[in-house]
């Protein structure tokens, strides 16, 4: 059992309070996922030609400015860094493959949590309320965000096993459910050079989408293919640069509810998360039908 929340803003006032609203939604899903929690937020686009990364190191005394300094020496251009809890957001004027190679060689002690233009991911073990506080999530402004509270059933409770999982540039995946064919699929994806770091089933689903997208599929096409290739129970929410998408498996055992007002679109595992939003009682509310892709986007 897990909890998923998502919020997509349709007006600038909501953007100003995105982190605050999403945090309240996340905390409402504590009973569904007290092991760990995480969010992906889309905000502050990196300048043209630059890459935004979220990095993680569990050491509270880790010297992020030193890492940024080292990277700047290497790349020659200014590298900015903003630290939030055990994570840091770096903006570097370089393409990701070169940054990844440099990090891998010089700083193998940090893990890359997200990469893109707008995405930032913050996730950690602990109760959602504690995670919200540690990362100061209520302060975040942005256009849209997804969140996940985890009750682990398939694999260990660590930060690396927490959601959201990055699935490529500005993409991430959160999952409520369990996949039954993830071991075989993991081996298949490794043959396609998809990096999978844990034994977690959702990471395989994320890797699967990464692979499909890399092969040229659109997000909708990748999700359509996922319905055929992923065996198990799932409600997925996929964060994209401009919005998010929601998909439930054909049996649809895993709950999901969507709601929309003039100001926002929200999705959650349970309505009580949505009830924390302003105007929720007047929202149009519906349940996504099985095996149908729902998506919102500014594009």
């Amino acid at each position, binding site marked *: 059992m897990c909890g998923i929340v998502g919020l997509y803003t349709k007006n600038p006032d909501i953007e100003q309070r995105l982190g605050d609203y999403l945090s309240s939604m996340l905390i409402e899903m504590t009973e569904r996922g007290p092991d760990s929690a995480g969010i992906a937020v889309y905000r502050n686009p990196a300048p043209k030609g630059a890459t935004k990364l979220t990095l993680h190191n569990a050491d509270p005394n880790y010297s992020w400015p030193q890492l940024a300094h080292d990277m700047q020496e290497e790349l020659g251009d200014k590298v900015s860094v903003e630290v939030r809890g055990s994570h840091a957001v770096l903006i570097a004027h370089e393409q990701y493959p070169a940054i990844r190679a440099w990090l891998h060689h010089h700083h193998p002690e940090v893990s890359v949590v997200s990469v893109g233009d707008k995405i930032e991911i913050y996730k950690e073990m602990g109760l959602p309320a504690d995670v919200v506080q540690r990362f100061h999530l209520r302060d975040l402004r942005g256009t849209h965000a997804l969140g996940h509270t985890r009750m682990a059933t398939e694999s260990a409770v660590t930060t690396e096993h927490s959601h959201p999982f990055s699935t490529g540039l500005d993409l991430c995946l959160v999952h409520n459910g369990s996949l039954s064919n993830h071991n075989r699929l993991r081996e298949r994806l490794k043959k396609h050079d998809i990096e999978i770091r844990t034994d977690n089933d959702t990471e395989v689903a994320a890797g699967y989408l990464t692979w499909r997208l890399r092969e040229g599929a659109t997000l909708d096409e990748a999700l359509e293919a996922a319905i055929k290739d992923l065996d198990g129970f799932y409600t997925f929410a996929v964060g994209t640069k401009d919005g998010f998408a929601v998909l439930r498996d054909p049996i*649809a055992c895993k709950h999901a509810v969507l709601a929309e007002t003039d100001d926002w679109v929200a999705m959650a595992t349970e309505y*009580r*998360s949505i009830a924390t939003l302003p105007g929720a009682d007047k929202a149009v509310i519906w349940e996504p039908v099985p095996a149908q892709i729902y998506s919102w986007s500014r594009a």
Partner: protein
Amino acid sequence: MIEVDLDQTEIRDLNERLHRLPPDTNERAWHIVNPKGRHAIGVGLDGPITVTIDGHVGFYCAGMNKQAEVVVNGHAGPGVAENMMSGFVRVRGNASQSAGASARGGLLVIEGDTSSRCGISMKGADIVVGGSVGHMSAFMAQRGNLVVCGDAGRSLGDSIYEARLFVRGSVESLGADCVEKELRPEHLDILTKLLDRAGIRANPREFKRYGSARKLYNFNVDHAAAY
């Protein structure tokens, strides 16, 4: 009318108050505000009371209900009126999955739509849905009546026993051992009375009846593929 604000009162305290009411109570009319999708509101009621809830409720509202009348002026989450024994539950909006699951008696009315598995394993209750029901509705339904004024999703009545299913609109597909049956005068009579009690206007003659072909009751090797 006794008003309870769920922003001020814990669900457990509300339910305990309702459970403690004696059979001859004068506190018969209850008004609940700010449900905000909370779970288990009005579960396990057993008395001649009316509980009106203004807003959307979460999981299992009015579960195991006996005698009481529960009205939800909003939508309901999964498992509304599950295992109801008697009484009356009305949802003015839509209901999520497993509405009326394994309910033994009473009447559940959903004025809007319900999603999957409506009336799963129902054991004698009556369920009237003003809109449509999702997939696998009336799965293993044993007794009672399910009336659907709209359409039914795929695999309606899979592995059904002796429940009666009435659908006015289309049926995406029938489940194993569920077949269309003749709508005889006694069925019209049941349907007319149920629609009347539910307060839903629909012409009973526009419905089709579905029920068990009774081919799965005893194992027959020729039917092995249907299991």
